[in-house]
């Protein structure tokens, strides 16, 4: 039981991370900065409870907000570069964040323990759950509260005018701007939302793991974030969920294969992309399932 609860909690972090990449991909941008936002969220929220003694909910939200602020800041320079150049620019951001945490030292002593980011040794002692005697079930429920809230918010956003605007920018920037959509607003908003969601995910992860280190937040994590969205599909918020299930079932379900599992992993990604290049849950599938409500027949227009 404990195992399944903890697995479900892990799914929660991955889904949030996938959703944070998803909202950015809707605007046609591929961002590897999500791992950086995740790291920032986890260190901020960890510091809030472990060092400043904040309660848990404001701490998690703070992680999300600081992640969102960095998303906003990265969004602006990212406007200058597009497509594959953005991949590299955001990769540089994630690596810089990692290097900063590799060198950041900000610790306090509590009794005989050292708490806080200790440069290369990582951030120990984010023990809010443990100190307050939270059970695995409670941790899982708390995590999923945030996951469901974000899923719901994105579902609503997707079906509103905002979703149509983001998709229009992703489909064709020139066409979108010629019908009066403000590209800057759309892209920066998507990046900010992505930063917020990734920050939340990191904040929740830090409290679950109780120890985080910059090693966890590298290119690999960033790659997985976009992989959840791309393999899962960007037809709906269910895409990243499907992506997480696909990868998680591969990672945890093929354990009986031993070492061969890792070999099969890469092959299955290639096979999936050949079979369903637009992801498992693509726009076509959503239409066929009848989950796609046509956007209102009002033309998108720009505010003054």
């Amino acid at each position: 039981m404990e195992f399944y609860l903890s697995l479900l909690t892990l799914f929660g972090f991955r889904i949030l991370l996938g959703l944070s990449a998803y909202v950015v991909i809707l605007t046609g941008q591929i961002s590897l900065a999500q791992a950086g936002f995740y790291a920032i969220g986890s260190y901020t929220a960890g510091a809030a409870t472990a060092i400043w003694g904040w309660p848990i909910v404001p701490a998690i939200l703070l992680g999300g907000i600081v992640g969102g602020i960095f998303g906003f800041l990265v969004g602006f320079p990212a406007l200058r570069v597009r497509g594959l150049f953005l991949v590299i620019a955001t990769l540089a951001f994630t690596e810089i964040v990692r290097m900063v945490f590799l060198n950041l030292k900000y610790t306090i002593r509590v009794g005989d323990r050292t708490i806080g980011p200790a440069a290369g040794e990582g951030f120990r002692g984010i023990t809010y759950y443990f100190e307050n005697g939270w059970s695995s079930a409670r941790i899982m429920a708390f995590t999923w509260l945030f996951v469901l809230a974000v899923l719901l918010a994105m579902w609503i956003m997707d079906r509103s005018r905002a979703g149509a605007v983001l998709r229009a920018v992703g489909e064709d920037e020139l066409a979108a701007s010629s019908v009066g959509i403000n590209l800057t607003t759309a892209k920066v908003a998507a990046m900010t939302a992505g930063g917020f969601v990734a920050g939340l995910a990191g904040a929740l992860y830090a409290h679950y793991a109780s120890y985080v280190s910059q090693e966890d937040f590298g290119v690999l994590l960033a790659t997985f974030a976009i992989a959840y969205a791309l393999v899962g599909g960007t037809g709906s918020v269910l895409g990243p969920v499907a992506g997480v299930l696909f990868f998680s079932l591969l990672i945890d379900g093929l354990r009986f294969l031993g070492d061969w599992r890792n070999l099969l992993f890469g092959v299955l990604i290639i096979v999936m992309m050949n079979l369903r290049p637009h992801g498992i849950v693509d726009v076509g599938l959503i239409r066929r399932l009848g989950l796609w409500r046509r956007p209102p027949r009002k033309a998108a227009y720009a505010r003054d």
Partner: protein
Amino acid sequence: MSDLALDVVQQALNGFLFGSSYALIGIGFTMIFGVMEKLNLAFGVTALGGAYVALLVFQLTRGPLVLVFLAAVLAAGLIGLIVEFTCFHWMPRDYPLAALMATVGMLFFIEEVIVHATNGMPRAFPAPLGQLMLEVGPWLVRGDLAFMFLVSLLVMAGLWALVYHSRLGLATRAVSQQPVAAQLCGIAPRRVNAAVFVITGLIGGVAGALIGSAVGNLSPLLALPLTVKGLVTAVLGGLGSIPGAIAGGLLLGVVEYQALYFFGIGYRDMVTYLLLFAFLVGRPGGLFGSKGV
């Protein structure tokens, strides 16, 4: 000359020579992007895979260096062809993200094959020149780095001849500039694409073997850094530009060695990335980029 100036020049020299291998990797990324407008994230592991096959050939035959390098080149060319067939051939043309994700899968796969075959342990790679050092005035030139630089120059010259003085090169440039018009002129874009993958694979094989012999060993841990360095090089030079990739690789080598000297290993990559970020924001087209990106 002061000691500091001597050291700075020495580091710049090492970086410049080592940068030639980054240039080769960068050429691979940039050529594929130039022809297909798609990114092949499996190129770093293509080079690494070639180097591992060379190592295998060396262990089996203890053969001469030429044979080892030839094995690397041929194997990486073959891997390039496989990457084209599995990750690009069947993908929709107007959706580059599908191919991007498939090459990520390929990256994981080749990395895991290497881990599987070697139990994840680093393996010593034959160093043809040993510890040979050349003295140039007050500076020392590592023999293997000089060798790396010379071989890279040869490869670049060969590539130049191929791209600008052969029918295949003409077809490649045509597809890169105007894919539809090229097709109307009777060029088969898919065949050109496959040829580009083989050519870049061959180059990657040389780069992999050179890096293996200069570093002294191979490890699956090299997969990600090789990919990232290649991407950085291609972007510094301007994606799609071969001279840009050469300049970008040399620049990256010099900057890395200077950062290592002044700031230490902990900050080396940070300096590199800050440079890259500044470059992308200030000059998004890269050194030689002509297209406004």
